[in-house]
């Protein structure tokens, strides 16, 4: 390792420490070997400015991305969670956008958290919002192409879902809770209420969510897995037999709604 690389490794270790450097006597000698200090700041205080910044920048970024989760946990538990997370998973990507990619799984492991199941759902939904925000664009469904599809071709047609769409099964109404927290509306933590949720980016590139029926959700999942329309409908009916008549009756209306919401972006025949 070169001299500068060795110095950088030492510094990176110091700057990720959770506690202040300038109060740790064991760090002062090490800091003095690295930094000159000046008449206003000691070497350890110079390093401390950067250490503090590491935590401010990364906790700030996570607060921005997981506002709902922070609202559920409250400051004390949120801070402990974030510190534990950053210690377990130091940021690797050049982009702060990716900082929370492992937070949903980390929240799931962090069973000490209050309102644990609710927190897990919120983390998953908030990460879905991050993914959907800058997912790839897709050309809107072309009505002329739709009109030209022969009726018999629909049986084997594959509906292509938007890359900016995520399907989530949650145990709590977290999307509505997130909205209330972000709007600074008064809120209370909701009781359990299972939901099938679609988090998506609409045609105006705004982020939205929509609760759908179990049958519609099963159909969307089957379509997302690449199944053609008829086998997808059959799979959804088999998975949610109670909704089989509804799937059959509302398929056309669902398709129109999903196309209008930019969930379906192409039909491959």
């Amino acid at each position, binding site marked *: 390792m*070169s001299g500068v690389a060795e110095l950088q490794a030492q510094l990176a270790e110091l700057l990720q420490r959770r506690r202040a450097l300038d109060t740790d006597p064991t760090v002062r000698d090490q800091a003095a070997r690295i930094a000159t200090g000046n008449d206003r700041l000691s070497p350890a205080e*110079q390093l401390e400015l*950067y250490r*503090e910044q590491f935590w401010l920048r990364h906790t700030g970024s996570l607060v921005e991305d997981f506002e709902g989760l922070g609202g559920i946990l409250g400051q004390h538990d949120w801070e402990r969670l974030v510190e534990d997370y950053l210690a377990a998973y130091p940021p690797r990507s050049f982009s702060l956008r990716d900082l929370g990619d492992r937070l949903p799984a980390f929240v799931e492991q962090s069973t000490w958290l209050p309102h644990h199941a609710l927190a897990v759902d919120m983390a998953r939904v908030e990460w879905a919002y991050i993914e959907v*925000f800058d*997912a790839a664009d897709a050309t809107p469904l072309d009505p002329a192409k739709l009109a030209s599809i022969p009726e018999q071709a629909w049986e084997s047609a594959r509906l292509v879902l938007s890359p*900016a769409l995520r399907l989530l099964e949650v145990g709590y109404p977290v999307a509505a809770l997130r909205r209330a927290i972000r709007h600074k509306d008064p809120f209370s933590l909701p009781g359990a209420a299972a939901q099938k949720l679609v988090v998506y980016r609409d045609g105006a590139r705004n982020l939205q969510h929509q609760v759908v029926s179990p049958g519609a959700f099963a159909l969307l999942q089957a379509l997302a897995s690449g199944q053609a329309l008829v086998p997808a409908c059959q799979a959804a009916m088999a998975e949610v037999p109670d909704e089989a008549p509804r799937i059959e009756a509302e398929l056309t209306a669902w398709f129109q709604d999903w196309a209008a919401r930019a969930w379906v972006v192409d039909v491959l025949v």
Partner: protein
Amino acid sequence: MTPRLGLPDLGVGVGLRVPHYRRILDERPSIDFFEVISENFLVAGGKPRYHLSAVRETYRVVQHGVSMSIGGPTPPDAEYLAQLKRLVQETRTPWLSDHFCWCGVPGANLHDLLPLPYTEEVVALVVERAKRVQDTLGVRLALENTSSYLSYTGSTMPEWEFISRIAEEADIGLMFDVNNVYVSAYNHGFDPYELVRNVPHERIVQIHLAGHTNLGRYILDTHSDHVIDPVWDLYRETVELAGSVSTIIEWDDRIPELEVLMAEADKAKVVRDAALARRARRLAGQPVPEIEHHRGPPELAPAALAAQRAWAQGGPREHEEAP
């Protein structure tokens, strides 16, 4: 050598930031050009890419980055450079800038612009990498002097010599941040004019101006306020020495209305024009009156701002708009 390495003078622009998108796209105000943070647009789609494309319909855009880590323990990431190159080809940025810094170590990206030790070893390292990056990206690379808060015991040369050596030996441009000169000079106790006067002026392809937060014992480069008078003085001096160089107003925290940024850009134009007039007189051999620089104790940040401790790393991320 040709001024600005032959690159164009785009005038005085501002950093493109999320809170101003709607006004910019609806009203298309008169702004010379925008600077974008490259990393915010290295994404697949959505609003970031849409806004960039819409802004480019009317305005020239230059790219500024914060993640190259040119002096890090490992060379700049190949995948990052590949993404950057695709964006360069899309935006047609006339140059691409990043910083004289390192950002992390393998396994831990600290997302900061950490200063480099000013040594022969690091000069050689950055020169070799800067050449390679410039070749890879196919666009002129410009590196920026950072604001720094620590000075290394191992440094063997002043900052101006460090950045000058690298710029000359790698044949790259300089993104000259005048506010960073002031911040680092204050934090380390050197004369900012020594730095301004000793860098290779013909290599300055762009200038940054910004506000900062003076906490007394040190200054944080927060980009959260107006440019202060002593920094305007340094800007005037830089333009007198370097000529007409594209200039950007950076404002990344407590971002004000667009009019405030535009007024700051207008002020920069006035200072720039005056400095260019003085430069023309000087080059013509005519007498140029001395200008009294702003002196006196630095203005400390009000108590309300002193709690603001996060410094700028290149501007806020693209993000879902606040409700």
